């Protein structure tokens, strides 16, 4: 006899996860502005979305920040993971490990406020960063992105057998050569997932960006938030549906690529 309770609860859980997303997609095609009134199928909200220059500009800025910060976070996070897993005789490893996981649990309001106050103090002391905007958002996103990349790469490195690297070193290869010829190809999948994670989190961040941003730099979540606070807005439904489409296609492609590998 099988417990029938668990599958029903699991089904409920999945319905709970996907119901809101499905509702967004359906209502993005609703002619009517009201949620409960079905005014017939329409793609007019998509037209309105692409005609909204404020949203397009903010989206481009967010994509730029996300791409640069995710790449920097991947480099720094990989270095940190190498130090934590592969380096021997490093003093203070426990402290480093604790420090790097800090941004994972710290509430956004605290990270945002503390970084902003740092930037203001730095500007008063050294004159850099002059004002707040693109650069300060970038620094903030690199910092929390690198924490996530470190965790992803760290778990891949500790699952991996280091005997190949050891033998290459014994045969006289330089550590740099070993890293680029052996370690790097083996951890590439982890680097890609780490990069994607940092990219997504950067694209999604509202609170930290709001604190460290200046007048010139408005990211996509900041525009969405100011629109959405006033209630439901159908062009935002259209935007959400496009994001769901891109993410689903991306996930399906990566799942197919993963399946090909042994």
């Amino acid at each position: 006899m099988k417990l029938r309770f668990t599958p029903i609860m699991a089904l409920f859980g999945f319905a709970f996860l996907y119901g809101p997303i499905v509702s967004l997609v359906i209502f993005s095609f609703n002619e009517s502005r009201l949620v409960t009134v079905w005014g017939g199928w329409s793609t007019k909200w998509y037209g309105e979305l692409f005609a909204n220059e404020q949203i397009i500009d903010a989206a481009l800025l967010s994509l730029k920040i996300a791409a640069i910060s995710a790449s920097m976070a991947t480099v720094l996070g990989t270095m940190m993971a190498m130090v934590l897993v592969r380096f021997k005789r490093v003093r203070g490893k426990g402290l480093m490990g604790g420090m790097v996981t800090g941004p994972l649990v710290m509430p956004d309001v605290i990270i945002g406020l503390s970084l902003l106050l740092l930037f203001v103090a730095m500007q008063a002391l050294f004159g850099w960063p002059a004002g707040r905007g693109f650069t300060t958002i970038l620094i903030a996103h690199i910092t929390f992105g690198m924490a996530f990349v470190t965790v992803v790469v760290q778990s891949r490195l500790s699952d991996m057998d280091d005997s190949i690297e050891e033998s290459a070193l014994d045969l006289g290869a330089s550590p740099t050569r070993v890293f680029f010829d052996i370690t790097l190809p083996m951890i590439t999948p982890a680097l890609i997932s780490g990069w994607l994670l940092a990219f997504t989190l950067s694209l999604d961040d509202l609170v930290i960006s709001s604190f460290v941003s200046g007048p010139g730099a408005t990211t996509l979540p900041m525009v969405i938030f100011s629109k959405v606070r006033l209630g439901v807005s159908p062009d935002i439904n259209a935007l959400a549906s496009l994001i769901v489409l891109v993410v689903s296609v991306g996930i399906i492609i990566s799942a197919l690529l993963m399946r090909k590998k042994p």
Partner: protein
Amino acid sequence: MSWRQPGRRFVIAVPNIWLILFFMVPFLVVLKISLAEPRIAIPPYSPLWEWINGEIKFNINFENYAYMWEDTLYINAYLSSIKIAAISTLLTLLIGYPMAYYIARAPEPKRSILLLLVVLPFWTSFLLRVYAWIGILKTKGILNAVLLWAGIIDEPLVIMQTDVAVYIGIVYTYLPFLVLPLYANLVKLDDTLLEASYDLGASRISSFFRITLPLSMPGIIAGSMLVFIPVIGEYVIPALLGGPDTLMIGSVLWDEYFKNRDWPVASAVAMVMLVIMLIPIMILRRAQSKGAEI
């Protein structure tokens, strides 16, 4: 691997200097400003020390902390945040545990697909997923329309802008954070223990409570803390789904900074929040190191 100087030093130094500068030092700045006096100036707080005629003069004041102690708003906001975080963690656990259990017991190809389904929403915008609930929960929203149509209720339910909406939003957003560590724990459970228990005549329910549940404790604790800790400082969910009565410390901090422009009080609020979070963070650390041993 023996990495030699100076490349080794470079690889150790760069990420650590970055984190110290942009993660650790900011907390010292927050601590410093929480001890300053607010001023109408740029920056809007008094310096902590000044050089007057070659002598250093310290200007430390605990006014901001005293102010927080006297004004009940802050204490109530901390208590209310802890309450909301605790209740929503419990609700997340009630929904998340059966999901993690079901996935962990599923056969292999199905298991990967189910795991993917849990993670997938996480990749779409968090802000937009919270926003989706406005359309569902508001008075003229989807939920009320369905319930009225089905004849279950006669009057529309008022859920939007109440704490109930905040709970729904939190459980929804943080569910994957709980399911994943719990799944990682449950999937390692040794089947022979359960079989032995059945053979000895224990029922499924009593085997669950005496074997599965105690063994999954590290997963439960790690998953719960991953929900509880960030929810204490949550801002977006109460801002979008909560009402004027929803009191959370993240919103208080946000308003102190963005509306009142009182940087010293905002800093003091952040320092106290950090102290409150130290205990759950330590519990999380212990659960994670225990989980690694199994």
